[in-house]
Structure formats: C-alpha cells, structure tokens
C-alpha cells in the first residue's frame, strides 16, 4: 500500500502571541512544530504500514525551506520518504491554491492508495485542505476519522460526529482526515533521528509538479483576509464562596443588580 501523509509546519500554539496593534501572529522566536492533527495522520499511516508489510509512507508538505526540519521529524518517527513543495510562487496560497499544489505533487508520486491528512491546522483552523484535496484527486473521502483499520483490502473507519459516530467501510484509493482521538502519535526513535539526516528530501518547485502559475500563490487565491483581530480578553471572574444556599442567594442578587434576570 502506498500511503501519503499531508503535513504542515505550524507555530507552537502554546507559545503563540499576537501583536495587539496589528492583530497578526508574532512568529519570531516561536518554535515551529508538526501540526498536531497531522501527527495523528502520520501515526495512522505508520500503523497501516505495520499492518500491511511492504507499504510505504511518504510525507508531503508545502512550505518554506525551514519545513525541512518538520519533514525530518516525520522521517524520525518512521516515514520512509518526504517531499517538500517549495517555491516562492507558492507564497500566499490559501486553501484553494494549497490543495492545487498538494494534488499536483501527490499525482507526481504515482499510484497512491491512501492519503491521510490532519483535520485542520492550528494556525489557520479552516479544515478545508483535506476535503479539497480529495475532490482534486477525485477520490472518496472520510473526514473526522477517529478510528481506522484495514479489513479485507478495504478500510473500516469511524467518523466522529457531535453526538456519536458513523462506521464506514471505504475502498482505496481514498482520503481520510484525522482527529486527535484517532491515536496517540509515537515519539521519534533515536535510530530514526540518525537515519533522518542521512536521507534526501525531494524538493519540488512549481515547474516540477507541472502546474500553471494561475493555480497557486496569492493572486490565485480567492480568499482575502478582510481584517484579523484578537478578541478582547474577558474580564476577571468573580468566585462566590459560602454554603450553596448563600452562594445561590448572592448569585441571584448579583444577576438582578446587573438586570440579567
């Protein structure tokens, strides 16, 4: 089975601060990490590979040259191969343009049985690239996958819903997007880290993947950010203490004073 994992390098969300004047993310000095949902996608791919010996796992990302670090981390976790789609002409791509580039890159890889992606990235939070990619590759998709196992040449997957789940049998080729409930991503291994730096990562530009300029980049992106802002922080809360009766009384009085009840 040829498995492709789409990954994205994102700023570590636990360290992110925004500039209160401009509302933009301050990326300087913030560590970049593998997007958490993508780590779940990679873990699922590695588990599928272990269940079907002879399979390969290739990680694909679109990003700046620094994304090399993240790809090597994926190799150190156990991926066989990695591709970096990197070209100045990709810059400013929204989800529409990004999925164009990823689809072209994946097509160039040849026959692919399963594409796995994280549900969404922590920086953009759109959850659009996975589904768009499935459309461009013309393969069926299941989003919000919380369990996945191979069964008689097909995959049996559990799709997370707000109040339950769907059990879906899906043939290959297909695309799945992973949620964090899917699994617990493994660590890199010591051996994996050493090997990761002995491998070559393929870097493909726009011309390598045979895509026209009007399909990628800022100008090709229909999404325009109108304004970005940080919501005002909530005021300090009040903790009422005492017996349940006293607290309930105080709460009711306070709400009345504020004309809320």
């Amino acid at each position, binding site marked *: 089975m040829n498995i492709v994992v789409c990954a994205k390098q994102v700023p570590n969300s636990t360290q992110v601060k925004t500039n209160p004047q401009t509302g933009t993310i301050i990326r300087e000095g913030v560590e970049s990490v593998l997007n958490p949902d993508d780590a779940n996608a990679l873990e699922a791919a590695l588990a599928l590979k272990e269940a079907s010996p002879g399979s390969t796992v290739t990680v694909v990302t679109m990003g700046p040259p620094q994304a090399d*670090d993240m790809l*090597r*981390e994926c190799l*150190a976790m156990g991926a066989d191969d990695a591709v970096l789609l990197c070209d100045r002409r990709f810059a400013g791509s929204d989800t529409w343009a990004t999925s164009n580039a990823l689809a072209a890159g994946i097509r160039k890889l040849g026959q692919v049985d399963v594409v796995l992606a994280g549900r969404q990235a922590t920086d953009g939070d759109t959850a659009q690239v996975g589904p768009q990619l499935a459309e461009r590759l013309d393969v069926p998709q299941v989003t919000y996958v919380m369990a996945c196992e191979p069964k008689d040449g097909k995959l049996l997957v559990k799709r997370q819903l707000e109040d339950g789940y769907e059990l879906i049998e899906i043939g290959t080729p297909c695309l799945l997007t992973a949620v964090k409930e899917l699994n617990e991503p*493994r*660590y*890199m*291994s*010591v*051996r*994996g*880290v*050493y090997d*990761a*730096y002995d491998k070559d990562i393929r870097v493909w530009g726009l011309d390598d993947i045979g895509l026209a300029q009007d399909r990628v980049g800022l100008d090709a992106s229909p999404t325009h950010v109108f304004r970005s802002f940080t919501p005002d922080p909530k005021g300090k809360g009040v903790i009422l203490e005492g017996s349940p009766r006293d607290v309930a009384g105080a709460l009711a009085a306070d709400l009345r004073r504020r004309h809320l009840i």
Partner: protein
Amino acid sequence: MFEKKHEMIRKLAREFAERELAPIAVEVDRTGLYPKAVWEKVARYGLSGITIPREYGGAGGDYKSLAIVMEEFCAKDVSSASLLMGNSLSGAPYLYFGTEEQKRKYLVPLAEGRTIASFGLTEPGAGSDSGATSTVAREDGDAYVLNGRKTFITMGPLCDYAVIFAKTDTGCKRKTDGITAFIVESGWKGFSSGKPEEKLGIHGSITSDIILEDLRVPKENVLGEVGKGFHLAMSILDAGRVTVAAQSLGAAKGALDEAVKYAKERVQFGQPIARFQNTQFAIADMATKVEAARQLVYSVADKLDRKEKVTTEAAMAKLFASETAVEVANKSLQIHGGYGYMREYAIERIYRDARILPIYEGTSEIQRLVIGANILKR
C-alpha cells in the same frame, strides 16, 4: 559541537521525559520500581542502546546524544538514569572487551532492552579501593568457581546477568593485578541477591548485594583477559563518569527549574519572592553553575566522540556537575522554605536523589585524586 540531529534527540528526550517520566516520578520514588511499560517504551525508541553500534542492536549514536537524553530524563526524575544503564556501565564491558559470541549473547538483548545487566565491582571492603577485591575465582577444569559478595549493586535483584570481578591470582605483588572479569547469569546455581537496600534517594534505581556461592562460570564467560579485570574496569570508567556527570547536570537543571517556578508563584510580604534581590542572586548563582556544568559535560562528551583520551576531564566533569547538583538542590530547597521540606514538592525528592551523585561512580575524593595525579605528572 551540536548538529541538528542533537536538537532533535533533545526534543525526543524532553517529550518522553515530560509525558512518560514526570507523571510517575512520585510513584516510582514511593514504590522503588519503574512500570514494565516504561522499560518497554525506553527500548522501543532505541533509548536503551543509544551508544551501542547497530550491529549489536543499538542505535549507533554518539556520547553527546546519550548525555542529552540523560540530562533531559534526569531533569524530571534523577533515578531514571537506571533506565539508560545499558548505554554505560552495563553495556560497555561487553562492547569493548566481549568476544563476538559474548556480544551476540549478552550485548544485543541488552541494547534492545530485553534484559537488564549489572556491574559487580564494589565489595563491602573494596569501595574506592577497588583493587582490594576479596571475591575469589578458583580454576576447576573447564570452569572457574566463584565465591564472594558484591555490594551496592545497581539492579542487583532484577538483573539477568552481571559482570563480576574476582581474584584469579591471589599471589600477585600489586593488588590490582590478578583480578578477572566474569559474565555471570543470575539464573545459575550459586547466584543470589540480597534484599534491596533502603536508600535516602534514587529509589527507582534498585540496589542490593550479589552473593556468589560456589558458582561455576564456564571459561568462555571470562570477559577480556584473565588477570586484566582491573584494567578493564578502569578503562570503561571515563565514559561512565561522563554519563553520571550528565545525570548530575539533569538533576541540577531540574532543581533550578523548580526554584524558578516556585519563586514566581510564592507571594510573601505582598509580592512574589522572585522580586526580592536575595532570590534573584541565589537563582543567578544556581543558573551560572548549571551552565558551567553543562559546558563541561558536553565538551567532554564531544571529546569522547572524537576518541580523545578524557580521563582528567571526565573526572572534572563528574566532580563539578555532581557537586553542583547537590548545591543547587540545596539552594532550591531553601528558596522553597518549609514547603521544600514537604513530600508534595518535587524539590524534596530531587534533594534526596542528588546526594548520591558525588558518591557513586567514583566519589568526589577519587575524582580529585585522578585529576591531581594526572595534572602533577604532566
């Protein structure tokens, strides 16, 4: 000195320590045991054989990587160094002195984390004076018969096999001559371990006597040359000392981290104690010493990786880092005040754990002896 792969090893070790070791540190201190699942995970990610070559089941990594993992692990739990012992004292004798058969039989499973091995040098009457070994090995046909008692042996009750040092020739003029190293399996008749010692700290690292009574060891289990056991023990100590120096660095870093966290949280006289200059000065001194220890540890590890002779520097790193760990743990506890004396705070454990560091793997006094002798003979 560091390459990108070392940064990645640090990330791996830090994540592992935060998620696997920190949450169970209190429990391990209480029970004295690491859960089997943790040993298995250490093995699964190649941490039990970082420096052991790939052909013998290890990851084929360098000493800098081992020191990094040691630092990150011990910053969360000082006794977790015992999970990594295969990389140092447990594995090195087989790696450097074992025959091909011995390496296949004993080193490979150790590197793969399937077995636990001990190093039996110390005796009740032979601590720093390790030449005074009184365990004897009498030649008997195709075997040696061992009798004696080893003491303070790390992993004694759990080990699958141990390297045991014994006198094969009691008539030598120099007492360090005539000592031979043997590979002894714990399942053999005549092998037993004493009851686990109750210690001040590092409870996760189980310690006991190993008793040898008319234990027959086949001659193929002689490790290295007959009569050259003392030389064998001394020659692997350099790497062992770097490992304990890195463990000490981790302990010191852990104690400093706790002090910084507490100083920001604790309010007295209307402000966090971190605002007081006394606290700032204490933290400044601690952080400076930790950084000095770090530079020393990694510089020696780097020299080891370049196959340089590091006897003096390894002793310096071990001496300085271990005494720094005790000093920083002590100051950190003082910053914690009364709370630092309570079990609920990690510094109470770190303080107890750190106290072994200037003692084992060569006391501070032995390190000074080594450093002084080497400098004066130049």
